[in-house]
């Protein structure tokens, strides 16, 4: 087990390394260049000054060597300085990452629980009216753009009903958990609804498959009640593929987080990456993307471990 985890971590590190190069190159393809921005409104700037600055910042070097320098610094924990936030990248990123992870984890949990409930109910009578209703709900969830859902939530629950605050993560001067939770409700629901549809479909498909399987029939032949058959025998085996798919999807919450954070004006990683790309903040964009990749890789690793834990047929070695 430890060996497996170690190997997977090494693999993930390698993927991260390769991806860091890919992202580094892509970032270099964004418009403008850092020196331009530095001397943007300096009328006295000459091409010589620009060239000198390029040399100081190593921008005259070939891509690979620049990447090498960046990597060496990054390995030592120096991810550079954020142009937009005027602070070291890590100092800016860490709280945003934490905030986003909280949002993602809560929404993910909510989405998973809801999907379990709906998927199981739908799988009990495939093709029946309840299944049709749940399918419709699931597909509807898949079919609404997240930003639009967010706007509708604000209009209904903040503007019309005044139930929840429309933006921010806390009321200034009110540090209570309740206040904090109230600010999280709408982003969490929005992000969770966007995921629930797909998850519900997975759970439903897997449950139908599982309910058809021989061992479920065996359980019935033993005289187990329907609840036990469904929840203990069918669900446990249905869970195995579902958990993997869900965990693999965890990373995709970043995209949703980006949108909900923008709409609900919450400081988070997704929004930060977006802003940094728009604002030519190369260091922040690069590191942010890498962190997001890292979170995805870690969730994949957890998925593998969960897989091995759920399925005794798999030995992690």
């Amino acid at each position, binding site marked *: 087990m430890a060996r497996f985890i170690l190997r997977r971590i090494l*693999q993930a590190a390698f*993927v991260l390394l*390769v*991806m860091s190069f*890919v*992202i580094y190159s*892509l*970032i*270099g*393809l*964004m*418009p*403008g260049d850092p020196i331009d921005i530095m001397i943007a409104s300096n009328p006295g700037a000459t091409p010589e000054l620009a060239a000198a600055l390029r040399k100081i910042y190593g921008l005259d070097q070939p891509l690979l060597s620049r990447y090498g320098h960046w990597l060496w610094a990054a390995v030592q924990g120096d991810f550079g300085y954020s142009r937009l936030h005027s602070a070291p990248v890590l100092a800016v990123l860490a709280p945003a990452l934490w905030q986003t992870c909280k949002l993602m984890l809560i929404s993910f949990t909510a989405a998973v629980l809801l999907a379990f409930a709906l998927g199981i109910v739908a799988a009990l009578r495939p093709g029946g009216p309840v299944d*049709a209703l749940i*399918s*419709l709900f699931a*597909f*509807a969830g*898949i*079919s*609404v*753009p*997240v*930003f*639009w859902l967010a*706007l509708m939530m604000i*209009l209904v629950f903040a503007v019309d009903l005044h139930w929840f605050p429309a933006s921010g993560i806390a009321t200034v001067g009110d540090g209570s958990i309740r206040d904090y939770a109230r600010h999280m409700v709408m982003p969490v629901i929005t992000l969770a609804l966007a995921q629930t549809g797909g998850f519900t479909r997975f759970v439903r498909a897997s449950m139908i498959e599982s309910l058809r399987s021989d061992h479920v029939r065996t359980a019935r032949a033993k005289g187990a009640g329907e609840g036990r058959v469904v929840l203990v025998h069918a669900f446990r085996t249905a869970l195995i593929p579902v958990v993997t798919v869900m965990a*693999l999807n965890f*990373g*995709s919450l*970043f*995209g*949703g987080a*980006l*949108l909900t954070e923008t709409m609900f004006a919450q400081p988070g990683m*997704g929004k930060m*990456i*977006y802003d940094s*790309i*728009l604002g030519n903040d190369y260091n922040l*964009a690069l590191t*942010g*993307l890498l962190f*997001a*990749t890292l*979170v*995805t*890789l870690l969730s*994949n690793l957890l998925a593998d471990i969960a897989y091995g834990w759920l399925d005794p047929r798999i030995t992690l070695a």
Partner: protein
Amino acid sequence: MSAAVLPRTDAALSVWRLRWRRFRRHRTGMAALAVLALLGIFALAAYPMQWFGGFDPDATDLLARFDPPSAAHWLGTDEAGRDELVRLMVGGQISLLVGLLATVFGGTLGLLIGIPAGYFGGRVDAVLMRFTDGMMSLPLLPLLIVLGAVDLTKLGFSPEFARSGAAGFWRIVVIIAIVDWTSIARIVRAATLAVKERDYVRAARASGAGAADVMLSHVLANVATPIIVSFTLTVGRVILFESVLSFLGFGVVPPTPSWGNMLNNAQELVTTAPALAVYPGLLIFFTVIAANFLGDGLQHAFDPRSER
């Protein structure tokens, strides 16, 4: 492939006829197909509207901003006095085309990676699939934004091309395609792995069939099933992507209409002119939901176990 001369077309119908019969019994799938067909007709109706009806999707009319539906403008006008209906039709062409093209390109990429990975296995598989995993682990939307922000001139395209409308359109198609092929590659790989172990493939190999022969004559035809299902879902997802990209400022650039940018554009007007948001919103919603139900129906039709 000289055997292709054999008259197989008439007979080839039979597998598909069987599936069609099964699909026809899938009520929501049929409804979804009908909805998608209607949406396609709706989008294409822009041409007769423009040629014969004299409707111009770009003609502005400052005196007719936010007009309610009338004989001249069946769905009313938008904030620049343009005919909403024709814009929705033209926008539909763009959105559906983006959806289809990105899916086809992404699907082709997925096929090119998934089939060899599944068929050859071993090291080829390991390399291709680690690559796929790596791509999958990249956060999709931020990556799309980076790709959307890429300066084409730095890739050697001329500034004229980089700034042209065509570049804007193809950029979206290409970036969605190169980001969204991974799931298809995995599906194709899994299907190929299954087909590869089928006895008919082994029989062909025993007769001396080479890898290319087997992949073309057996694997490709038999992985079609999961691919078609996955295609329908992808088309829906891509259309959603386009609207999200529009929201983030990287979608189809106005004034070329797409449902995505029309919806995004209508955001600020949502309280004053909600209809402008409702139309493209509903069209996107129906397209995506129909694509999903269609995929569901096809899955049912292609699954031999659903025969009863």
